[in-house]
């Protein structure tokens, strides 16, 4: 690669302009330790690069944190009651969930995974529409354009390239949109993760890659995914800055993700933020985490809970009053009640919809198949009316 190219890249990156390749590279490196602004005991932990967000902002986000925990609890309960097919909980990761949503403006886009239900709801998507996927009525229950939230991605890391595409189009269209794309630690091993970072850097598009490192990919611990010094270090290989942040520190997340979003919006290009957090519960309700980790490991992270430290911090500063705590709790209860009520109501599924959206216009084959199913259903209905067992599933006629 010629020097000219390196200088060109350096200028585009900002910050490292004009430096030798090694100082340019140095500028892309993450902090040696994850950025922390409030420690687990709730004490401030000043950092000259990242000022503490102001009290109002923190208080507002704290309210969302309380709601986020409540959403996780409620969804877990609904799985136990058989109302949801499955729920990948973000219990313990709520600070990441809230921060990812609240650092974005209305013109921005969020690209979440299956684990990021709380982030999606925090961004304003109707909780019942979000939970459609996990309830099993349809694959995606909300319109991605309405709140600029992509569908929750299950095939790992694939959504990161879509995020790059949305950002690239926004750039071509002259929009000021920033895209925040989420993935887990395990997903960083997929090829698509690497292709997305490289594309974003080469096209210099406004994407913030937000990796929630919760130390596990189902049963596989991080040490089996990578021997890099950190996941944030991977950014440098693609020519973008990486940063590490305490993923249970809401204040630090708001500051670090906020800076990455600002930087992207100001034309600074993509960056990667790795939040160090922990998956407190099993991968999903169907997983048995005792097979691969000890209760002690989990216990250690209880003390680092994101809610605990923020509550202490806000109380010490007299920012969190008895009334606001009650208001937040009432708010969280109200959200949980909406979810509970909605999911306890049987929704009518419409089987003829199966053929409606495969193509913009139904093929003649699909029209035929839809007619066949309608006929079957009508026959079943007649049989049911006549009191015989004509149900499609019935293995006897």
């Amino acid at each position: 690669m010629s020097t000219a190219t390196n200088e060109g890249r350096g200028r585009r990156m900002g910050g490292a302009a004009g430096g030798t390749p090694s100082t340019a590279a140095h500028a892309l490196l993450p902090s040696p330790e994850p950025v922390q602004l409030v420690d687990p005991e709730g004490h401030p932990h000043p950092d000259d690069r990242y000022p503490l967000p102001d009290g109002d902002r923190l208080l507002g986000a704290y309210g969302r944190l309380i709601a986020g925990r409540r959403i996780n609890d409620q969804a877990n309960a609904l799985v136990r009651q058989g109302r949801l097919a499955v729920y990948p909980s973000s219990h313990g990761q709520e600070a990441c969930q809230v921060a990812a949503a609240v650092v974005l403006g209305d013109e921005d886009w969020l690209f979440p995974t299956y684990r990021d239900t709380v982030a999606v709801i925090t961004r304003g998507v109707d909780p019942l529409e979000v939970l459609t996927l996990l309830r099993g009525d349809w694959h995606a229950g909300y319109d991605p354009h309405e709140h600029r939230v992509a569908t929750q991605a299950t095939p790992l890391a694939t959504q990161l390239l879509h995020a790059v595409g949305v950002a690239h189009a926004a750039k071509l269209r002259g929009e000021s949109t920033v895209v925040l794309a989420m993935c887990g630690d395990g997903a960083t091993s997929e090829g698509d993760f690497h292709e997305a970072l490289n594309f974003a850097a080469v096209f210099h598009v406004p994407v913030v890659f937000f990796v929630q490192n919760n130390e596990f990919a189902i049963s596989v611990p991080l040490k089996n995914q990578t021997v890099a010094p950190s996941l944030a270090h991977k950014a440098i290989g693609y020519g973008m800055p990486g940063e590490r942040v305490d993923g249970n520190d809401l204040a630090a997340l708001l500051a670090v993700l906020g800076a990455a979003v600002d930087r992207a919006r100001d034309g600074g290009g993509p960056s990667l933020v790795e939040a160090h957090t922990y998956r407190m519960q099993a991968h999903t309700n169907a997983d048995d985490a005792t097979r691969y980790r000890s209760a002690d490991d989990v216990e250690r992270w209880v003390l680092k809970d994101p809610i605990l430290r923020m509550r202490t911090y806000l109380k010490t500063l007299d920012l969190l009053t008895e009334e606001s705590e009650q208001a937040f709790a009432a708010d969280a209860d109200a959200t949980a009640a909406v979810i509970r009520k909605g999911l306890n109501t049987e929704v009518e599924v419409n089987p003829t919809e199966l053929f409606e959206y495969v193509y913009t216009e139904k093929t003649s084959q699909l029209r035929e198949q839809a007619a066949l199913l309608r006929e079957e259903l009508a026959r079943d209905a007649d049989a049911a009316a006549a009191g015989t067992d004509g149900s499609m599933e019935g293995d006897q006629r």
Partner: protein
Amino acid sequence: MTQTTEAPAPGTTLPDAGAAPAPRATTFAKALNAALADAMEADAAVLMFGEDVGPLGGVFRITDGLTARFGEERCFDTPLAESGIMGMAVGMAMNGMKPVVEMQFDAFAYPAFEQVVSHVAKMPNRTKGKVRLPIVIRIPYAGGIGGVEHHCDSSEAYYAHTPGLTVLAPATVRDAYFMLREAIASPDPVVFLEPKKLYWSKEEVDLAELRRTYDDGEAPRRIGRAVVARPGTDATLISYGPSVPTALAAAAAAAEEGRSIEVIDLRSIVPFDDETVCASVRRTGRAVVVAEAPGFASVASEIVARVQERCFHSLAAPVLRVTGFDIPYPSPKLEHFYLPSVDRILDAVDSLQWED
């Protein structure tokens, strides 16, 4: 997301009556687990790797206990990357190993597609047989388990359409054991499709007996050999993998209505057993193919074409298909509208021009 699944408890662990091993209720999952263990025991070149197959034992527990028994070098977790898993398997097979890899779910095998199609399938042919790739790609596949999107694809046609791949789909506990052993022993790459909904189905078998039978070379070959799962005289249902139990249930229901239906369990999609299938159809004169995958350009289509070409003069009616609709696999609450049902099969049988 992946729905990891514990085998449902009821009846799974029967109280051990005595010391002597005897036929006991054994799940499809357990038979696969035993086949892997026995193959690893028999041949040190056999390795098992993939996602969560180590200490966890796989999300369906098919590799349960293998790491503990054979060590981390023989059964291990890789970084989370299917293309990586498949590509590394190619290299390992080039250097004396017999890798068995697990793709966690059907739809999560797609990142490995490039490796499968361009290398796994083609390498032996490109090198005029100088490089053989004895790889087994295990894929928990198909639906009927209430799984959310990307967990229920019937992907057999992609593989069956790719020359160079052997494609198997067992439907019984015994076949699960013998076919996996045979797949591992095969010098050619095998795509081994494990119907998820059958993982917890049970048969009375003695796993030690199966092992002896296989090791003594007494197990009849299954690759390329279909089997008559239920004899009959009036019509033939041709099926494989997850649809076999549905076809058998349809045959049982038809018997109550006075119709004798033969059911063929293909077991091996590629190589395809024209002989067994056609012999049956020539005898019965009528046939319906039952498969869960969307019907358009499917394995079911291929079967119909082959039967039509070979048995035309014996046929009393066109060969029909009962398949999934040509739509993406539905969400849990809608899947029963999609899956081939006993009623749909019986309807198809009814329309085989019995009056003529």
